[in-house]
């Protein structure tokens, strides 16, 4: 059942390589989020390609959803635009396929209902076939996974769950136990959006996670500059940037390339300015 990629690897093993490579280089991985279909399907493929070419180790392809309760205004606006443009679930899969075909590494970030409607087993199958490596599900907690773990395992892709500063030790333990690929640590209590300062809660949360798991830990929510990326990279395995890149995307591919380069330097500990 497991989809085998060139070289006999699965989505999961390719995802593992992203982090082992970064670790070997004594740095954090840079993970860039942009939604499929923004500003258009082709446009989003171009922007994500740009992010990969400019130094992102992995991209999160956002699957636009009508009720994104964990997203702030910047990402809401982008997914609204994508949905009004008629983007479909299959478009997200085709964006992943295009990126993977040219060697890009991609996971999908999606709210649960579109997956539920598509069929979790079918979604895992089709994403694996497209070359996707895993799925981040911001509103699915493992308690409600109902066959999702089995489906992702069968197709060799990673189910990536979130932990938050409010998570109890017990929930961090149970969530990390079923997460594959990397753990997504939501650094602050709040919705997505660029913030001026990296909160202390991020470091604390990563430390708490490490007591329960050897999984790489990616930190998301609020990073927008090379300086912040460097700061997060000093204690996390992955630096996840979303809203700041979406804001840059409003100014086109060059702006995305510029910010990605700055962030990529940041995760390597080389950054100028803030």
């Amino acid at each position, binding site marked *: 059942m497991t989809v085998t990629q060139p070289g006999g690897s699965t989505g999961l093993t390719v995802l593992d390589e992203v982090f082992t490579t970064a670790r070997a280089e004594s740095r954090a991985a840079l993970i860039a989020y942009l939604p499929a279909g923004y500003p258009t399907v082709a446009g989003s493929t171009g922007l994500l390609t740009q992010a990969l070419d400019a130094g992102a180790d992995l991209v999160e392809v956002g699957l636009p*959803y*009508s*009720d*994104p*309760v*964990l997203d*702030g205004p910047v990402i*809401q606006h982008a997914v*609204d635009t994508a*949905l009004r443009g008629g983007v*479909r*679930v299959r478009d997200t899969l085709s964006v992943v396929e295009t990126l993977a075909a040219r060697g890009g590494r991609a996971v999908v970030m999606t709210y*649960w*209902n*579109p*997956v*539920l*409607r*598509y069929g979790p087993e079918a979604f895992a199958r089709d994403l694996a076939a497209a070359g996707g490596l895993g799925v981040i599900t*911001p*509103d*699915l*907690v493992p*308690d*409600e996974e109902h066959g999702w773990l089995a489906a992702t395992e069968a197709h060799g892709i990673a189910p990536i*769950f*979130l*932990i*938050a*500063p*409010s*998570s*109890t030790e017990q*929930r961090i333990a149970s*969530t990390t136990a079923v997460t594959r690929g990397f753990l997504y640590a*939501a650094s602050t*209590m*709040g*919705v997505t959006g660029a913030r001026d300062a990296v909160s202390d809660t991020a470091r604390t949360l990563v430390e708490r996670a490490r007591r329960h798991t050897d999984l790489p830990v990616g930190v998301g929510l609020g990073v927008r500059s090379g300086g912040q990326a460097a700061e997060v990279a000093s204690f996390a395995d992955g630096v996840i940037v979303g809203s700041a890149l979406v804001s840059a995307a409003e100014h086109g591919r060059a702006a995305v390339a510029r910010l990605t380069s700055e962030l990529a330097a940041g995760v390597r500990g080389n950054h100028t300015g803030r």
Partner: protein
Amino acid sequence: MSTTPGGLPPASAGLAEHGHNPDAGGHFGRYGGRFMPEALIAAVDEVAAEYDKARHDPEFLAELDRLQRDYAGRPSPVTDARRLSEHAGGARVLLKREDLNHTGSHKINNVLGQALLTKRMGKTRVIAETGAGQHGVATATAAALLGLDCVVYMGEVDTERQALNVARMRLLGAEVVPVTTGSRTLKDALNEAYRDWVASVEHTHYVLGTAAGPHPFPMMVRDFHRVIGLEARAQVLEQYGRLPDAVLACVGGGSNAIGIFHPFLDDTAVRLVGCEAAGDGVDTGRHAASITGGSVGALHGALTYVLQDEDGQTIESHSISAGLDYPGVGPEHSFLRDVGRAEYVPVTDAEAMDAFRLLCRTEGIIPAIESAHAVAGAVRLGRELGPDATLLVNLSGRGDKDVDTAARWFDVVDPASLPTEEPPADDAGAGEREL
């Protein structure tokens, strides 16, 4: 338990153990649960734990009963609608008068409970979503009474069509935030309330306004509203020596319906009929009938019937009634539908407005347009069952807030004297709109 006038069950009786709870994860059959961000799980766990303690705490229960009796005005009466009956096939139509509660609807039942719970948790701020504004007004009221800060999220479209309630909330000291995202109605107000809560959960309780959302809200909100059915069941039994043949209520999220249905669940001969808002008609696609015209999905924290397209994107709902204009429904209703214990029927805008006018004219009661959907369902069912039938209708709210909408619909005022707004999209049957 404290006593109530007439020896009727007090509000606290609704919180007592009964045999119809969800499993530990909040599932009613396959429905319900918690489809929500991990960041909020600790908060809903805290609410669940605190509610469990509160429902067994005599002090909490006594305080709830005191407020329900001395402040909200419980129990609410049951009115025999004799002139309405003539239009309902001669069936006896009994109205459970939740419209007579303080703030004008059933919403106060839930809000007093959750506001007391907020104090117990040591939180100082409440947030709420509102559609018609009834829940927002009730929350603002309880917040004023108990000294809590209050922010109400309301879709911009709804702030326009329910301007009176916006003014009421502001008079009560609440901040009303018009929501301009998405369809700018109730579902978007919910999204915005969640976004607030995830960042404010340390000192804020989210007073969810209907028996939907993540566990424990569907169970807890239901329990706070069970007093409606407990009272009504006792009142009908005492006054008529029998149970009703059917209990009818409007269903948006479904809190007033689950409140009146629930104490009748074990009375299997009593039909439970939920009246969903069919807008222009379920077959037109412009409706809010999630059970009749929707499919199973996860929305706002629960697995339930939702209006969605083939990609799982939420479809905008349509109803003349802001309080029913929601593309989901409480998970226990989905469960009751699947097991066949309750039935859900569509009622169009036009049918609801006919019933609205009928109740005004025959009983001197101006109902909320939401509640008029249940009245329409009763008129229809009465004609089917005939004069031997006894129907209990939850008149969940009063219609003061809807006078503007109704005046437009029936064309009873000079349009020039009203603020500008688009006329109802459907002009068919305009001749029937004369009051």
